[in-house]
């Protein structure tokens, strides 16, 4: 398992997203994935960008030491990327924004749910763990 700990700040979103994309790309290349690798990797890049953004946005802005943990775990036929924060619990299934209402936010978990095969959200130990999984084959 690969892990990374990043300060909970917007400037680190891109580091987390790039880590997710490159890990998924290598996983797909080395595990016999026969689909579109760029799309597969982009799904993780986008999902982690959304998850990390939420972790920063809903954190305690007065806590300059806040961090977000990223972990990447692969099995023979799946890869899971987990984003863990130290924030209060959030609704894992919020209402989907109605696009005709010109929403400027609220799509993060919706997008993750569309891109991933499995999404698990838990609140324990004072933080949220969002595990995002895709299967191959």
């Amino acid at each position, binding site marked *: 398992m690969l892990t990374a700990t990043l300060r909970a700040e917007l400037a680190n979103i*891109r580091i987390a997203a790039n880590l997710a994309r490159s890990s998924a790309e290598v996983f797909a290349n080395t595990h016999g994935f026969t689909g579109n690798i760029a799309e597969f990797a982009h799904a993780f890049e*986008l999902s982690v960008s*959304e998850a990390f953004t939420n972790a920063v946005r809903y954190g305690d802005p007065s806590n300059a030491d806040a961090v977000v943990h990223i972990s990447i775990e692969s099995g023979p036929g799946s890869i899971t990327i987990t984003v863990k924060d130290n924030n209060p619990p959030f609704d894992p299934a919020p209402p989907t924004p109605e*696009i005709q209402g*010109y929403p*400027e*936010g609220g*799509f993060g978990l*919706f997008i993750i749910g569309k891109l991933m095969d499995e999404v698990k959200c838990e609140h324990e130990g004072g933080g949220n763990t969002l595990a995002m999984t895709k299967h191959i084959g």
Partner: protein
Amino acid sequence: MNIVETARNGATVISLEGILNAAAAPQLKAHLENSDPASPTVIDLTNVEFIDSSGLGALVGFLRKKKTGSGSLKLANLNNRVKRVFEITQAYSLFDVYDDLEAAIGK
């Protein structure tokens, strides 16, 4: 994110380059805040490497401003990564989207 604004055939063309996420969205919003809500505007996304829902939110907010100001907003040159976000969120139903910048300016 790099933002370049030019005037073309009576339209304002705003060309975006780079990553459009929550770290970049405030910069884009600040730029768009200063634009004339009544003027026809085309946003060229050719060089947008990545967009997420925060970036989309900045565009949606600008579109709402345009609608209330009786202006127009067109988007041009969405790559596959940008298109995917528009498809998932159904943002295509809000925006006028063109495959070509010239077509967006000309219509």
